[in-house]
């Protein structure tokens, strides 16, 4: 039983060390996957249409497309770090899209955008009140709010209003400057920087991790957990609204299904990015890479002519596979 085992032991030890490096720095693995996926897409595209995919334009397009998903993923990351989940991000984004196009004509672009953001923050706040103060399960609370919001939107969409997507919103959601830089990066990049730095270097960021890790310990350390949760869900609503504004700019019109396809991917991006489903560890950097990976994957599937239903199945499968993988690595300790 002991003969020959030292060698095996060092090999498994090496394997484990590699595993640990990856689990401690998921960004390395994720960047590798992103690049590899890009190359695969390039090869497939050359085989199918003889055109390259690995071009500056396509890289730029990937970032342009990824922005709304990454912003939905931003709020989702914060919420999931606290151990919750927000299933209302898509309808909140849809609300913002409708409000932006529906009120811009009568009240001006500035007011429309403010209203959209305010509504997003407000919906998030309601979620937060339910979860933090009335202790409703986050899944139930956000699903319920999502349903209420969608109903309200359906009624609103049947009333008569002049729909107009302001030019600036349109530019922001679909155009580029210097040929390759999407305008939506101007919105996304500062928010991303704020979240990444804030999570790491601010007291509030620390509290988000802490609440997800052990709410009882937070209470004993004097943290009023409900305040943290309230703010996190409200911020998630606001970020979702930003995503909705970019989406309506991209599509140049709002419809009830504008953001719905992004709900599951928003959770998938966070999970791919290595944020624990149970909360307490992870970060936004991983989510960004998760969103980019999903966007390239979407392009690849589109090139392969996959039906939306197939994509949906794939997203579900990815989430399940990753959840299984992360559960395995964390329980092997």
């Amino acid at each position, binding site marked *: *039983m*002991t003969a020959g*085992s*030292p060698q095996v*032991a060092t090999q498994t*030890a090496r394997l*484990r*060390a590699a595993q*640990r490096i990856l689990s*401690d720095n998921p960004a390395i693995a994720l960047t590798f996957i992103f690049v590899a996926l890009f190359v695969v897409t390039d090869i497939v595209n050359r085989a199918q249409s003889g055109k390259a995919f690995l071009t500056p334009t396509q890289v730029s397009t990937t970032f342009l497309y990824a922005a709304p998903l990454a912003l939905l993923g931003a709020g989702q990351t914060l919420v999931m770090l606290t151990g919750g989940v927000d299933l209302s991000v898509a309808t909140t984004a849809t609300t913002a899209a409708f409000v932006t196009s529906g009120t811009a004509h009568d009240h001006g672009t500035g007011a429309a955008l403010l209203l959209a953001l305010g509504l997003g923050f407000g919906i998030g706040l309601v979620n937060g009140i339910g979860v933090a103060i009335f202790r409703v399960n986050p899944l139930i609370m956000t699903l319920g709010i999502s349903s209420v919001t969608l109903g309200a939107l359906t009624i609103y969409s049947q009333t008569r209003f002049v729909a107009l997507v302001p030019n600036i919103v349109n530019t922001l959601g679909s155009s580029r400057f210097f040929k390759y830089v999407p305008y939506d990066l101007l919105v996304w990049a500062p928010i991303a920087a704020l979240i990444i*730095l804030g999570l790491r*270097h*601010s*007291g*509030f960021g*620390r*509290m988000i*991790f*802490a609440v997800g*890790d*052990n709410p*009882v*310990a*937070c*209470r*004993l*350390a*004097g*943290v*009023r957990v409900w*305040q*943290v949760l309230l*703010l996190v869900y409200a911020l998630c609503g606001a970020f979702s609204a930003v995503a909705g504004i970019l989406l309506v700019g991209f599509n140049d019109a709002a419809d009830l299904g504008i953001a719905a396809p992004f709900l599951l991917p928003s959770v998938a991006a966070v999970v791919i990015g290595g944020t*624990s489903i149970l909360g*307490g*560890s992870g970060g936004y950097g991983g989510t960004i890479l998760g969103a980019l990976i999903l966007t390239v994957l979407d392009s690849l599937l589109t090139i392969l002519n996959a039906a939306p239903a197939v994509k949906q199945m794939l997203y579900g499968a990815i989430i399940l596979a990753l959840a299984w993988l992360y559960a395995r690595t964390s329980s092997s*300790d």
Partner: protein
Amino acid sequence: MSLLEAREVGKRYGPVVALESANLSVDAGEVHALLGANGAGKSTFVKILTGVIQRDGGSVELRGEPVRVSSPSQAARIGLAPVFQDPALVPDLTVAQNIRLTGVAVEKVQQRLRELDIDIDFTEQAGDVPLPLLRMIDLARAMARDPQLLLLDEITAALPSDLAERVFAVMEEWRRRGRSVLFITHRLAEVIAMCDRATVLRDGRDVGTLVPRGGGERQIVEHMLGPEAAKAEARAAEVDEKAAAEDRGAADAGATTLGVSDLRVGSLAGVSFSLRGGEILGIAALEGQGQDDLFAVLAGERRAEGGEMSVAGKALRPRHPYDAIRSGLVLVPADRLLALLPQRSVRENIAAPRYNRVTRWGPINPREERRRVAKAIEALQIDTRAQRQVRRLSGGNQQKVTIARWLASGFQTLLCFDPTRGIDVGTKRQIYALLRRLADDGAAILFFSSELSEFPLVCDRVLTLFGGRITGELAGEGADEASLLRAMHGLVEEVAV
């Protein structure tokens, strides 16, 4: 005859070595102690022996037959039954349901508990049963399997002395029946009184097996700490004791910082006392006399039902631990799992109370944070080899982190509920010295312990609590075990009459 033979057993987690290479031999009919400082590898060893984790190398033999224990249930089948440091129970299930989960007949456990003279309502939720009684249930559950070898991992750490006595009786019974017990404890007095032999682990290796009765405490401590450290330790302890004796004379000067009058909550039926800055006040009590409620109210975890509290003359009515912390009252809870962020780093854990307000915007000052954290780590001599995640630290180091948090964030009154539970002798002395130093710097300290011998070492004054009321007050030096026990059973007044 040897019942269990473990040779060169090792376990590592990536670069962290939990157990280097340990040997252990337990005879049939023997109570064998497994000793060592925090992080020496004791718990890892027991978990390997009982199939909770798998060893990387070495061999284990049971009655001469090599065995590979692959799971806890297999361990139970071959006659190895452990009782772990943290009771493995589902808090939302009743006691009876919990027992059924493990496949042990409830009646057998009930009978064992009756033999132990412990009365437990089996329909109660496990989460509502106090920790010491959960340990006893765990013990009865292990006994119900009637194992060849009982492995008790720090079972007495959270037990009041009356329950600890019953554990010793079980150990006697096992020895009498020719069966064996592997006993992990940090209380050397228990080892000397109860154990036939003791194996000492240091840094993941066994450094000696000795007979505790003949040579006694010093030899064991030397083995645990290593010869050099032990000498330095003995000198430091002498100096500390002298300094402490001198300080006791001078400690009377401080003003009252914490006043409690007629406090009532839960089983606490009207308690009054005052605590001065510079003073360490002990609370001695049997299990369930209201000490939990007292600490919970002072820490802002529960609201008082009646009575007054004041800090520096100002009324205190905390509605949340945040309010208590702002008034300078901070808690080191009995259960360290309640105080730690297991996935976060040592640094984030220690700094946590500093960032407990949502309205505190702006970035953290990293230099200030590093300085404070480093100071707290140094004061408590925390082993930071596995500092990326607190859950990878040993139990004793985790306990130190729960105290370090308050050193880093500042406080006036430290509420210590059994702070040395599950900590080795060397570290205990460090903590006694630390508490004394804090008191010298003007802090007020309220100190509960389930280990009576700590009171004369630590406290200036000791109050005994019985049935929710204060039944006695002793000077620190006079708080020997006998007088404490009498007062803790509410016997002092009768004697006085």
